[in-house]
Each structure stands twice: as C-alpha cells, then as structure tokens.
C-alpha cells in the first residue's frame, strides 16, 4: 500500500472541517482517481496530503511512514510529487533549467542529477530538442509535458495530480492523459483529481467518490462501468 489516508478530518478553519473522516488508499503502481461534485473536498484532500493544510484528526501514511504535519517543500524528499493546477513552468528559465530545478532535492550529487536529466530526455525527446528554449515560449501542451517531466527527475514513488485538464484546449486534454498513462506504465503510483469525470474514469484503476467532504462510493473501475451516470445524477 503506497499512500494511505486514514480517517482524516481537515479544512481551512478549525471550526468548519471540509473533510470528515475520509479514508483513501492509493495502491502501488495503480492510478487512483478521486471524483465528486464541486465542493466535495477533492482539492482540499490533495492540499491536506501535500501539507498545505494540516489535518485536525487522522493520519496520512506513505509506505508505512507518517507524513502528517510535513511541509509541502519536504514532500518530494519523501518521494511524493505534486502536479499543481494550472501552468507551473518557470517561464523565463530554459527547459533544461526547469528540469534541473526538478532535481533540487538531489542537487548535491551532480552525477545523479545528470543521469536523471539524461533519463528524462530519453523519455521526452522533444524536451531534449528544445532544452535551450525558455519554457514560456513552449506551447501549452509542451509546457504541460515539461511540468510532468520535471516531476519525474527525482523518481518519486507517488505523483498527485490536481485537475490536469483545467485551462487546456480539449485537444490537449487527450495528450495530457496519454502522458499520465505513460507515467503509470513507468511504475509511478498516481492519485488524480479531475472535474472531467469521464476522462478520469477512462484511465483509472480504482475510483473514490467524495461527496460533501465524506467518502461516498469506492471500488475498482469495473464496478463503476454502468453505474457512474447514476452517481452523477445523485449529485444534481
């Protein structure tokens, strides 16, 4: 079991918890999707896992080790990467500088860093070609690719992905999901939140449905094959 969220209660103000007693397990090497209507607490859950918010109750374990209370900048060191919502390249820096910063936590070992860079370039030949370009000059889809590639520099075990299709042209959404599937094939454990329910369902191995800050449904994708429309109707 890679990432385990155990009866977590969390929110922005202590008196008003957004999440109540949420349980979730992201299985190693699998793609787990969290879906739910607006305000269900999906993004709050990601923020809580990554240390932007601290749970008032419950525990979060990564490979058996509690990561509750750690700060966001400590997470990558624990092997958890986070693709945040919206564009997140450093626009005035080159593609290569962006990737090198992805290796910030391994920067003390130049050899390891160079090897990581070479490996990422092997996976993303386009980025090698454009490594001297400033990231801001890349197309929207290329920037997303760079953001994803940048997260793999340190070979984290788990990648959290928040709304990967927000702000992208419909055509690019497919490309981004192809990249995410590739990540899964490379063996990363992935936890994804997306408003585009059907897109997430297509690629997910395991699905959690949140509603009003609590667990509502869960199960492998097959279980949802026919029933997802019913669940969505419930939201409305």
């Amino acid at each position: 079991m890679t990432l385990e969220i155990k009866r977590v209660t969390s929110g922005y103000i202590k008196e008003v918890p957004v999440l109540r007693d949420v349980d979730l397990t992201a299985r190693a090497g699998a793609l787990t999707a969290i879906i739910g209507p607006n305000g269900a607490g999906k993004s709050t859950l990601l923020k809580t896992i990554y240390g932007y918010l601290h749970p008032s109750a419950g525990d979060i374990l990564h490979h058996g080790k509690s990561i509750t209370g750690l700060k966001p900048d400590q997470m990558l060191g624990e092997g958890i990467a986070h693709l945040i919502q919206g564009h997140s390249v450093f626009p005035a820096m080159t593609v290569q500088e962006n990737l090198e910063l992805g290796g910030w936590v391994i920067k003390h070992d130049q050899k390891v860093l160079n090897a990581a860079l070479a490996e990422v370039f092997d996976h993303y030949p386009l980025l090698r070609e454009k490594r001297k370009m400033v990231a801001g000059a890349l197309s929207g889809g290329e920037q997303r690719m760079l953001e994803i590639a940048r997260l793999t520099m340190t070979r984290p075990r788990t990648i959290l992905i928040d709304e990967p299709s927000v702000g992208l042209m419909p055509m690019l959404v497919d490309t981004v999901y192809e990249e995410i599937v590739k990540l899964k094939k490379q063996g990363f454990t992935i936890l994804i939140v997306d408003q585009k329910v059907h897109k997430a369902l297509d690629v997910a191995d395991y699905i959690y449905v949140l509603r009003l800050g609590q667990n509502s449904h869960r199960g492998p994708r097959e279980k949802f094959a026919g029933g997802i429309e019913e669940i969505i109707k419930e939201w409305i």
Partner: protein
Amino acid sequence: MELSIFIQLLVLGLVRGSMYALMGVGLSLIFGIMEIVNFAHGELFMIGCYLMYFVAAMLGLPFPVGIVASGMGLLIVGIILERGLISTLRQKAGRDWLMDSFVLTIGLMVIFQNLALITFGAIQRGIPNLVSGQMTIRGVVFIYDHLVILGVALMTVGVLWYFIKSTSLGKAIRATSQHSEAAQTLGIDTGKMYAIAFGIGAALAGIAGALLITLFPANPNAGMGPVLKSFVVVILGGLGNVKGAVAAGILVGLLEAFAMFFLAGGWQNVIVTSIVVAVLVFKPAGLFAPAGERP
C-alpha cells in the same frame, strides 16, 4: 561640445548611475520575488553609511573592510527583518498581507530614522575621501574616489548577476519569483529564498551607503534622497526587473550628469521626473521589459 567635456560627463554619469543601479537592483529584486515595496530601503542605505563610518573612521580600518562590513551587516539585518517581521506578517495577515507590508516597511523607515537620531544625533558623520587624489588624462579629470565607487558597484552587480544566473541557489530564487507554488512542490524552501533575496537586496543598499559616504555623510536622513532615486530607477526599469534596474540606473545617472551641465541646477530632476511620468503613462511595464520576462 569638446570631446573631453563629453567624456567627463560620461564618467560622472556612470558613477552616479552605478549607484542608482545598485540601489534600484536591490529594491527590484525584493519586489520581484516577494512583491513587497520596501519603503525602508533608504534606511538600509543609511545603516550602511553608519557601518562604514564606524569601521573606517572610528576603528580606522581600511575602507574595503568597511564596504564588506556594510554588505555583510546589511545582509544579516535584511535576513533578520524578513524572518522576524515580514514572514510573520505573511503568515498571519493572509490575503491582505501586501497592503500590510507597505505599512510595515513605512513603519520601519520611521523607526530606523528615529533610532539613528536618538543614538547618533542629528550630526553628519562623513569621511572626506576613500582614496585621495585624482588624475587628468587629456583634460578629463578622474577622481580616484569616483573610480572606486564605479569599480566596486560594477563588481557587485557582476557578482550578483553571476549568482542569480548561474548558481543553483540563484536559480532557485528566480524560480521562486516566477512561480513560488511550483518551486515549493519541487522541494525549494521558498521562505528561505525570500529571506535570502531580502538579505541580498539589503546588502546592496548597504554597499551603496558605504560607497557614497564621501558624498552623503552618515546622518539619520541620509537614505531619503537615494530611496527616491531608486524608486525612479525601478519604475523606469520595470518593477521586479533586475536587468532593467541596472540599465535604468545608468540611464538616470547619465541624464542627470548631462542635464546638470547644460541646464540650470534643478532641471535634472524635472527631466527625470517627466520621463517617469511618460513611462508610467505609455510604458508602465518599464523601458526595458522584454515580453513576459521577470528577473
């Protein structure tokens, strides 16, 4: 115009400009990464003046020691201010903290000025020169002090440039200024980057204060003139644009030197201020803003 006069004005302009650049770069660096307008920047300059006076005049140590002491001293002061006050404010004040940061730095300005007044009194404490003497080459006078100021300023900007462009810490600072949330997810301690950047900005003001002690003797209000000039530089160069601040600083220095020669005294301010107004109206991102680029 005779060539010798032209070159003389060029030299004077460069000396002035290098100082404006040093002050402007510090202010711009701080704004670029933290979005704080540091109204107390002139008081950091003032503390640099006093440190220089203390080391060079009172302890009688060689002036380069004074410059290094001012730089290091202000680096520490800057880091303490950021860690102690600004980051606390950022964490406590929430979304409106930027407005609060204005009030904070204005408050710091008043406090530092009055602390200096109580401690040192309203006396000017200057040093007649760093290196006495001058030389004349083909009718152009080179005052040794001016050459020291120009040389140290250019070296400082050069070192800063290398640091920001090529070291991994410098890159992390730039990354934080371009996308702090993304920098944080990559394991960069953004709070630390803010403190370092603020410290460096303060150190640049301190070095400027130390260098200019022969022209601006240490006194509680020593920073008020330079800070106004650095705001001019930052507006012309583009807020947060470090490269632009260097160029704008030198431009303002040259403009002033030539205006003071050809026009009656005081017109240099009119010209520079008019340009500021024009830039704010027609090119609010600054004269040297490449599309979409920040430091």
